[in-house]
């Protein structure tokens, strides 16, 4: 979006004997053609000490005071007719004395107050100005000062005079589309979904006197308004008809720990979680800029479970990327049948838009 800040670039010619207002500028809140409700912050400095009763502001096609202030050219459509006084830094008691709206002879507004001798810089804020209708058009703000309250004495261009060149400008509209997004990946190594790869986790040779561990990774982000849930699907470690018992209470998303959620050697156990564990020392906590967390029984350090279909991680709203480390623990009793045990785990990330 473009906010136009238009400052006069040059001094306007002053054909009559009036003093010249210096340090003139006008900052607009928007330069859009035809914009209404625009704030004009107008700055100028009096040529010297003078009796000041009124100030006239005109929006014209030309800065030249000898040229009629027409509103039929590039300034067409501009209006001070509904403008209000926001503030005036020089002197006291200022108010809008008269004003005319958009017309073929331009538009103007007179600020008035009880005449007083004033000198120096002034800053005036006029609110609710309407810009010229067309974009990318140069127009001019004329400023003149008077000793009386009606902007009549001395005759135009008054005591001091100056103009400010301004421009409307096309508004640049930048647009793009953020579509529904779900970025999810699973693997065994990497840092994010651009490089997470791998699919095999070797849990080693099981022993009744030691806990075996392994890890995999998953990363997710989404702009779904209702966030996402990652569920775990598969069976426990199996070798033919022999299995290693899953940990935790065997019902969906249960928080129970029957017979156990803690790793213990000598007992057949298979479980997982997404935390940084000490017993055994495996895994890391979730990382990344997102707000997702582990879920339920999978989100407590040193506590593990496995149940097909469980939710292991989730977030309730839009989230940046998080990387989860899935830690797996395996224990066997001495009576665990010999064999190669495998399990294929599939993680499903469901986003709700």
């Amino acid at each position, binding site marked *: 979006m473009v906010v136009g800040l238009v400052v006069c670039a040059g001094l306007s010619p002053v054909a009559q004997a009036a003093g010249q207002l210096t340090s003139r500028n006008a900052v607009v809140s928007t330069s859009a053609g035809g914009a209404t409700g625009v704030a004009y912050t107008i700055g100028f400095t009096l040529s010297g000490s003078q009796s000041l009763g009124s100030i006239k502001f005109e929006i014209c096609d030309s800065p030249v005071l000898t040229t009629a202030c027409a509103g039929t050219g590039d300034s067409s459509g501009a209006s001070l007719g509904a403008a209000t006084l926001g503030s005036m830094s020089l002197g006291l008691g200022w108010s809008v004395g008269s004003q005319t709206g958009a017309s073929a002879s331009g538009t103007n507004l007179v600020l008035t107050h009880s005449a007083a001798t004033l000198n120096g810089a002034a800053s005036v804020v006029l609110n609710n100005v309407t810009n010229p209708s067309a974009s990318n058009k140069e127009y001019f703000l004329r400023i003149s000062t008077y000793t009386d309250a009606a902007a009549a004495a001395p005759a135009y261009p008054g005591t001091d005079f100056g103009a400010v060149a301004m421009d409307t400008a096309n508004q640049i509209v930048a647009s793009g589309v953020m579509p529904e997004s779900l970025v999810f990946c699973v693997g065994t190594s990497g840092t994010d979904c651009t490089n997470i790869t791998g699919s095999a986790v070797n849990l080693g040779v099981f022993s009744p006197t030691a806990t075996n561990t392994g890890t*995999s990774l998953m990363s997710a982000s989404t702009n779904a308004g209702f966030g996402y849930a990652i569920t775990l699907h598969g069976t426990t470690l199996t070798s033919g008809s022999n299995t290693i018992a899953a940990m935790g209470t065997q019902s969906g998303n249960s928080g129970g720990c029957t017979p156990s959620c803690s790793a213990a050697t000598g007992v057949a156990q298979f479980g997982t979680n997404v935390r940084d564990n000490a017993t055994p020392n495996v895994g890391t906590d979730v990382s990344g800029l997102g707000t997702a967390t582990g879920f339920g029984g999978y989100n407590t350090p040193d506590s593990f479970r496995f149940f097909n279909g469980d939710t292991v991680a989730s977030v309730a709203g839009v989230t940046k990327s998080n990387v989860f480390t899935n830690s797996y623990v395996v224990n066997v009793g001495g009576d665990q049948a010999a064999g190669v045990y495998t399990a294929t785990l599939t993680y*499903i990330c469901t986003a709700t838009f």
Partner: protein
Amino acid sequence: MGKLRTGLIVAGVWVTGLMPLATEAAGLAPRNVVVGSSGQGVSTSYAVNATTATAASIGSVGFQICGAPTGACVTPAGVVTTSATLAAQSPGGFSMVNGSNGAPYITRTAAPVGAGTAMSFTLGSITNPSTANLSYFVRITTYTGTDGATGAVDTGTVALSTAQPVQLTGVTPEILVFCVGTSIAGNCTTVSGSTIDFGDFSPTVTRSGTSVMQAQTNAANGYAITVTGTTLASGVNTIPALATQTGSVIGTSQFGLNLRANGTPALGADPSGAGSGTFSGAYGTPDLYRFASGDVVAAGLAPTNANTFTSSYIVNIGGAQAAGVYTATMTYICTASF
């Protein structure tokens, strides 16, 4: 955002030459697609859940599986929908039309559906994209027409992703864990000690001591623990071993052991642990002791978790027992039969 994106989807449909939409469709929300499996190339179910925004007479619902959320719909490689089924539906009355791969739709005689209606359709036998960890999209549109193209009412896109399945592998080898010592705190990693000091023998007091052993195996035929060694000896002098199960008798030279919790003398402990191993009969009666080299003292008849056994030794001597330092080395052998 939903409505803005929806508008773009409508534009995209028009560009691809499908039926132009007379008015911009509203957004289906909330909406999601719950897949039965995220594995690449897997044939699975897609449970499509979407809530309508607009009350209308709905004759069909289209499901485009696309590689991008907007623009022309390019079906991701590997996706197969030509065998798709309609496994469940709410509202009902629909049947599957799966002739166009990547763009199945369900159709029925148009019937009213109110705004805010939570629809749910389970599409079966859809093959996921063949690439792992791939984001893809299902574009859902309700139509007044029955052809899956005419009179779009509500639309919404859901982002999905395949995910690389994780293959966990480990090996349980043939196991025999056996250990012997004089103390054990848990499993065999905690066992320690190898000496038992009976102190000074006396014809008026029974001397005793204990050792421990633990065994577990996944051998199909279990294990047997034998004890080998000689009775207590000092040079040529020995303390006779109890050849049969005998109680402790003060003043009579005897050396024996068992694997039980005894009362006379108070000594030992019964086996403990989750396993099914147990003492043998000859060493399994409290207060009765025996020692014969080569005897089986404990066994498990099948795969068994760990059991801890306490071997209790008793020594008595007669007053004539020759003075000396008596020693015996007991060796336990655990043999597993796989």
